[in-house]
């Protein structure tokens, strides 16, 4: 099994296969959403997801049932605010930050480390909510995630949630799940800066600056996918 999570604080995703018979199996997905801290000219900005598309590439197997539109049970860590969250994260590890202008040194925690953190998150979970995801059909089926209206970005997680069942043909088969995003799916907020007074920005300048920052600082990490997992 291979997993690539380019911005694991932002999205950590893994998929698992469950099957009793040889010909049929289910696909379960685990995902954890939160924000990622990026160093920005001596200040900091946070990047998080407002949505994205989870796409499946199937080799030698066929979808037999598909989660079309369903409430997902979603655990959400108690909101502690970005500033407090930043303080905690800095205490945990300084290595979990992007450094501007260098090679993309994104957080690369191992799966085991991540499991510990996921467990810790579950322990501090204070509420459960439900969200809907909408299905995408076509040659690369999948699901579209979006924030609820009041949310700035996606936070929280769901664990081993069954999304689809498959029929596999004899021989080798493979499922690749890719979480794909565009700039419109990325939330950017400058939380510390010595250079810019972003809070005074008008609407148009903020929009164009977000696109510019995405293109210069973040795009390479999100193209062609943000997270990928294979079974």
């Amino acid at each position, binding site marked *: 099994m291979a997993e690539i999570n380019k911005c694991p604080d932002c999205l950590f995703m893994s998929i698992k296969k469950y099957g009793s018979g040889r010909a049929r199996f289910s696909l379960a997905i685990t995902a954890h959403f939160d924000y990622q801290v990026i160093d920005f*000219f001596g200040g900091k900005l946070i990047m998080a997801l407002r949505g994205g598309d989870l796409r499946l590439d199937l080799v030698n197997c066929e979808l037999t049932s598909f989660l079309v539109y369903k409430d997902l049970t979603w655990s959400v860590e108690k909101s502690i605010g970005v500033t407090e969250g930043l303080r905690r994260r800095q205490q945990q590890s300084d290595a979990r930050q992007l450094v*501007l*202008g260098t090679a993309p040194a994104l957080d690369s925690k191992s799966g085991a480390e991540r499991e510990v953190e996921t467990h810790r998150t579950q322990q501090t979970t204070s509420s459960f909510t439900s969200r809907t995801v909408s299905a995408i059909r076509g040659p690369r089926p999948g699901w579209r995630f979006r924030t609820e209206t009041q949310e700035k970005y996606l936070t929280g997680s769901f664990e081993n949630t069954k999304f689809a069942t498959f029929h596999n043909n004899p021989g080798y088969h493979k499922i690749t799940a890719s979480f794909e995003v*565009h*700039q*419109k*799916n990325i939330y950017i907020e400058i939380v510390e800066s010595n*250079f*810019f007074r972003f809070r005074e*920005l*008008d*609407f*148009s*300048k903020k*929009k*164009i*600056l*977000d*696109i*510019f*920052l*995405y*293109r*210069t*600082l973040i795009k390479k990490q999100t193209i062609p996918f943000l997270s990928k997992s294979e079974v």
Partner: protein
Amino acid sequence: MILDQDIIDSALRILNSNDDHAVTLIRASGMDPTKDLVGTDMGGLRFDDEEIYGFDLTHADLRGCSFTNCHITHCKFDYADLSGSQFTGATIKSTSFIEAETKGCYFDIHHYINFSEKQLNDFARVIKPSDELEPSQTYIGKTLLTKMVSEQTELTLGDAKRVVEMTFDAIAGALKKGDEVRIHGFGTFSVASRNPLVRRNPRTGEPMMIQGAALPKFKAGRALKDALNG
């Protein structure tokens, strides 16, 4: 590789721009609109009276944007979300809208845009220019006339509407005073008076008095007649 100083300079150009029009800011940032705007969030931005050429806005979130009187050429809006956006008075050439979401859009339909049936049904309002009239549609209303004036004169729709309305008001006002309105080559508006009449009700046979009235008339000029007859 982009140097840090280049990033700071570009960001400062956006922040310090005196003009907050979207196109100006995009240019100030140094981004290439033919490729850097794919899948971006540009919802709510205004492109009014701008000229956008070659912009690739595929998959972009353009909800609530205003493209009023915008000149759009060789652009791509494929798979973009245009919900609630305004294209009134825009001129659109060689531009594609494949599977774009058009719910609640205000749009002028031009013959070079191949909208799907679903897209057309989703439009909040569609204005068809006169050369696009279907055979069954045999009249031009004030709205369409306004749009035609706007297109010919480069006046905004609001200004064109005022011009059209003032022209009608001036003609009506002159006729009300009993004056003739002669427009050389087009025709003459005048008022004829009809005397009171006595007629019989065809069902009962009883006599009825019909009041006298002022009747507006229009007599076409020679140039107009010639134009209609080739």
